[in-house]
């Protein structure tokens, strides 16, 4: 007769096992969704930079000329409130356009992440996601790493992503606590955080897809499929406006000097 003592699973342990499986499934989805969002954001960033370089820069030039026209007209009529308002408005618009151009990062040409880079990012997001934190200090640490990871992904920097993952694996925050009861509470909270984050990702994706930038990107892509470059055509249109504005500025100056 065998004299074996088998340990029975306690209700807490059973629940813990279920919750762990639930969390693992959610973490997988979270990694996937974070990847989707980061890819979408990065693609929009690249498009935005391209738009600004090709079309935005023309608007900056146009706005500057229009501001000069408005200021020249104001010099002719310095006490006229309408001219004062128009000059202020035009100058502020020109300055804002210039400022917007200043925010565009150089060197963003295209974003085509490889499958292996996506896989790595998915893994990083799954492991270090801030919504898996158990306290504020851990959350802060995770947020910092996640920001670095997002940046590395957008830059296509595999080594940096691997280093971030290694840094996390070695950190004390990656070590889990003990005790079934405490662990269960932690798991329930983590699940709630992850579900909340998944909802937020969904919302952000919806907002991005409703943005003017995405609408413009889609139009550029549709036209590109027919062998045309919509951004260049738009730049051409704004150039036409610039030529007209330059003429107006000349006339305004001529009137002043006459």
């Amino acid at each position, binding site marked *: 007769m065998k004299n074996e003592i088998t340990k029975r699973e306690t209700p807490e342990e059973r629940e813990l096992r279920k919750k762990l499986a639930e969390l693992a499934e959610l973490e997988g989805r979270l990694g996937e969704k974070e990847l989707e969002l980061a890819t979408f954001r990065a693609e929009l960033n690249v498009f935005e930079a391209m738009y600004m370089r090709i079309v935005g820069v023309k608007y900056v030039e146009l706005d500057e000329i229009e501001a000069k026209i408005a200021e020249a007209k104001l010099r002719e009529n310095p006490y006229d409130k309408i001219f004062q308002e128009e000059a202020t408005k035009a100058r502020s618009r020109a300055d804002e356009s210039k400022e917007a151009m200043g925010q565009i990062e150089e060197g963003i040409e295209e974003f085509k992440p490889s499958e292996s880079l996506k896989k790595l990012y998915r893994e990083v997001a799954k492991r270090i996601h801030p919504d898996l934190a158990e306290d504020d200090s851990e959350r802060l640490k995770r947020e910092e790493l996640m920001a670095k990871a997002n940046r590395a992904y957008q830059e296509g920097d595999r080594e940096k992503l691997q280093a971030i993952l290694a840094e996390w694996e070695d950190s004390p925050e990656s070590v889990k606590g003990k005790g079934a009861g405490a662990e269960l509470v932690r798991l329930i909270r983590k699940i709630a955080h992850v579900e909340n984050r998944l909802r937020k990702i969904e919302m952000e994706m919806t907002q991005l897809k409703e943005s003017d930038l995405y609408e413009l990107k889609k139009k550029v892509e549709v036209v590109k499929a027919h062998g045309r470059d919509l951004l260049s055509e738009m730049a051409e*249109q704004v150039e036409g406006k610039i030529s007209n504005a330059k003429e107006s500025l000349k006339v305004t100056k001529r009137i002043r000097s006459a």
Partner: protein
Amino acid sequence: MSKETNETRLQLIPYQNRQLSIKANLIKRGLDLVYSLETRPLKVLLHGDKHLSQTIVEHLKLIYQGRYNVTGFIMELSWASEIVYLAETQTIDVFILILNNIIFTSEKRSSEDHIENILNLLTLMRKTYGKPIIGLFTWPDDPSFEKRAKDAGADIVLRMPFKWEAFQKVFESCLIPQNEIGRSKSR
């Protein structure tokens, strides 16, 4: 999270919002420019049934207002020679033809001759004008007719009666290649 970090973040929010908003203005202007360029002439030739043609034109005008300035060239009588004449003298963007109503001057009178004439006309128009052709028909019942008409040159062939949604989908697909933003000035 430290108090200092929280404060720094709170200070950053209005700054970031402003940055986003001024960039968004430049992007909105670009999108408005695209929309303004999209309002361009769209000439549609319809023939074969005056009432149906008028209904289609009115619907198109309503749906595409702001994007296209739709002009409908409606022909009451469907002489093949008149279709070719209008295609020759106007820059038609889309042809909507009720295929079985087209009248030919040919002496040949059999059904198959009529079908042959229709197919020849489609081929001629496709080769000469290269613009989308939507073929509507009630006759012949021959199930292969749709394929033959497409092979001859029609982009899409729809049996009547059809649902408006189906027609609109077909019409949209004809518009995509000609969505020539920025080229309208050269027309």
